[in-house]
């Protein structure tokens, strides 16, 4: 037998590295019913956020006090009205914009920064690792809510400051997760085998480490979105995030709190959508995890 004897005569399709993997993940996701439902919910929330002016009939900032706290099912206000008579459906639809913005933006920024830092810490030597990780431990010493409140308090309220403070809060956990998966992957034999071929460190990191580190980080980031939504709502509830006239689920919950004895259903509505959306992100993260782990049997 010689090497060429058994060579196939067919032309070999050159698969782009990684593409096959993502197609596989897509196929697995498509078979996961829970994740599909959850994805549909998230898509709906995103669509509502984008098309809020088209699907609502009222002004989110103008209400008639005579109409206040109408129950669900009131003609013209199918989800009722809030404590100053504004249409709740309109408020919730517009509110999803701010909620998504404050839920997703900090996570994206924190993931970009945190993953970079974590991978560098995981691959770099002991000094780099200690430097990065101990700095993160300082942030870790504070409970995340308190840290967010403290930063927000220092910077002052407002959407931009809230996003900034949430970003700072989320960087340390992302760094931790990325660092731990990187050190884990780095010590596996296939990285050594890649090094043994004489490939440069950059090449080994790009082709062997990153691909294996990215999906756990991505999964973790998705789960952070739900936390971010809740924290953002919490900050707004405390009056540190979105200022009152603006529609945001957390601040709406805060404003409706006083009406809980008059019309508990209306008062709970913003909380309910927060719950559904954050749970959807959480379940999405679960679904992604099992879909991305190609090793798991179905």
């Amino acid at each position, binding site marked *: 037998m010689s090497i060429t004897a058994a060579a*196939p005569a067919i032309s070999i399709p050159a698969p782009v590295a990684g593409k096959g993997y993502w197609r596989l993940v897509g196929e697995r996701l498509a078979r996961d019913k829970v994740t599909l439902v959850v994805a549909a919910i998230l898509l709906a929330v995103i669509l509502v956020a984008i098309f809020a002016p088209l699907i609502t009939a009222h002004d989110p900032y103008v209400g008639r006090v005579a109409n206040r706290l109408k129950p669900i099912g009131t003609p013209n206000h199918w989800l009722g009205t809030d404590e100053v008579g504004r249409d709740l459906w309109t408020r919730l639809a517009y509110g999803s914009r701010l909620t998504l913005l404050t839920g997703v933006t900090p996570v994206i920024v924190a993931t970009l920064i945190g993953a970079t830092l974590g991978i560098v810490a995981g691959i770099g030597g002991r000094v780099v690792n200690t430097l990065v990780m101990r700095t993160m431990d300082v942030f870790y010493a504070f409970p995340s809510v308190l840290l967010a409140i403290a930063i927000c308090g220092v910077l002052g309220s407002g959407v931009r400051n809230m996003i900034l403070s949430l970003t700072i809060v989320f960087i340390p956990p992302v760094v931790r997760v990325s660092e731990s998966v990187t050190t884990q992957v780095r010590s596996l034999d*296939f990285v050594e*085998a890649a090094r043994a071929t*004489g490939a440069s460190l950059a090449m080994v990191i790009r082709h062997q480490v990153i691909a294996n580190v990215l999906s756990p980080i991505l999964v973790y980031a998705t789960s952070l979105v739900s936390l971010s939504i809740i924290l953002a709502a919490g900050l707004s509830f405390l009056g540190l995030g979105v200022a009152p006239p603006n529609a945001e689920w957390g601040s709406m919950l805060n404003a409706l709190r006083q009406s809980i004895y008059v019309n508990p259903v209306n008062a709970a509505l913003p909380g309910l959508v927060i719950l559904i959306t954050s749970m959807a992100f959480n379940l999405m993260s679960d679904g992604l995890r099992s879909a991305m782990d190609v090793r798991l049997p179905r």
Partner: protein
Amino acid sequence: MKPSADLPSTKSPAAEPRDRGGPAQPLLIVEGLRKHFPLKGLPFTRRPVVQAVDGVSFAVKKGETLGIVGESGCGKSTTARLLMHLIEPDAGTIVFDGDPVGGLRGISVRDLRRQMQMVFQDSYSSLNPRAQIADIIAFGQIAHGRDATEARERAHDLLARVGLAPHLFARRYPHELSGGQRQRVNIARALAMDPRLVLLDEAVSALDKSVEAQVLNLLQDLKQDLNLTYIFISHDLNVVRYMSDRVVVMYLGRIVEIGEVEALYRQPRHPYTRALLSAVPTLDPRRRTEAPPLTGDPPNPINPPSGCRFRTRCPFAEGVCADRTPILAAIGEGVDHAVACHMDTAGSGHSKAPAAPVSSLEAAE
């Protein structure tokens, strides 16, 4: 082992274009290889050190298979990783086909890795779970600047060569393969670099017996066809005997015996080698093991025994064994069999040592 000096080369030009030293030049000479792993200790105290490999010297002849055996933790795998420069040795020189590795005049580690490849024990963790088989095999060549399509084509050829149909396996992922198939992929990956020396670190240990036999036969075929030299690391004495031309026996980071496989298996000299070989179970009731097997574990490599490291478990240990480290020396003139034991060193002071300063071939009891 004395590395043979540079002999005038009697080159056969057709054999191997990269051959530099000629057939008499060992492909690999290792001298005084040492690796101590420092552990964490209290500040301002001497940090404890694991003496994983401590002064290992041997040579690998061109075209042979050198087996390395020993208990787990004796430094076999560390030696392999040191040879590949996956971890940096603390001391020692490595000479590949007459060229020292590293230094100003020597070949670089990168060049060394082109000619020397390794097959890992764990066939699963040694393959990137996110990559397709063809890409895994092609990676090394692409990293060395080869065109990606070409490298993949070659990966397909290699798959066929190791007995995996390319059209079935090239696009698969490691987790979709069985252990034996994965190990074949590992072999194909090593071969992709066109190595002259392949380090097989427990390459078949994780496979079941029937698959193991197939892979061993594949390795033998490849060696023949591709003109390879193997370093075959295993704890399985039978497999080592089947595969190897010469065998190195390691104990606690040192070589205790080295020799031609048949001579060493038939007449082991070092008490440790004897104990190892007597522990191999046989199915023949007439060849029942009479001697008690070795008891206990090897001592902690953090604080290895002084002198001969085997003395704590050796039935023949005497005072001299604790005082002086036996030197690995040939047991006779022109015999390719060396042992590091005071019982074989003339005038060592051991009661069983030959008295005269002339080496004796008399088997020590």
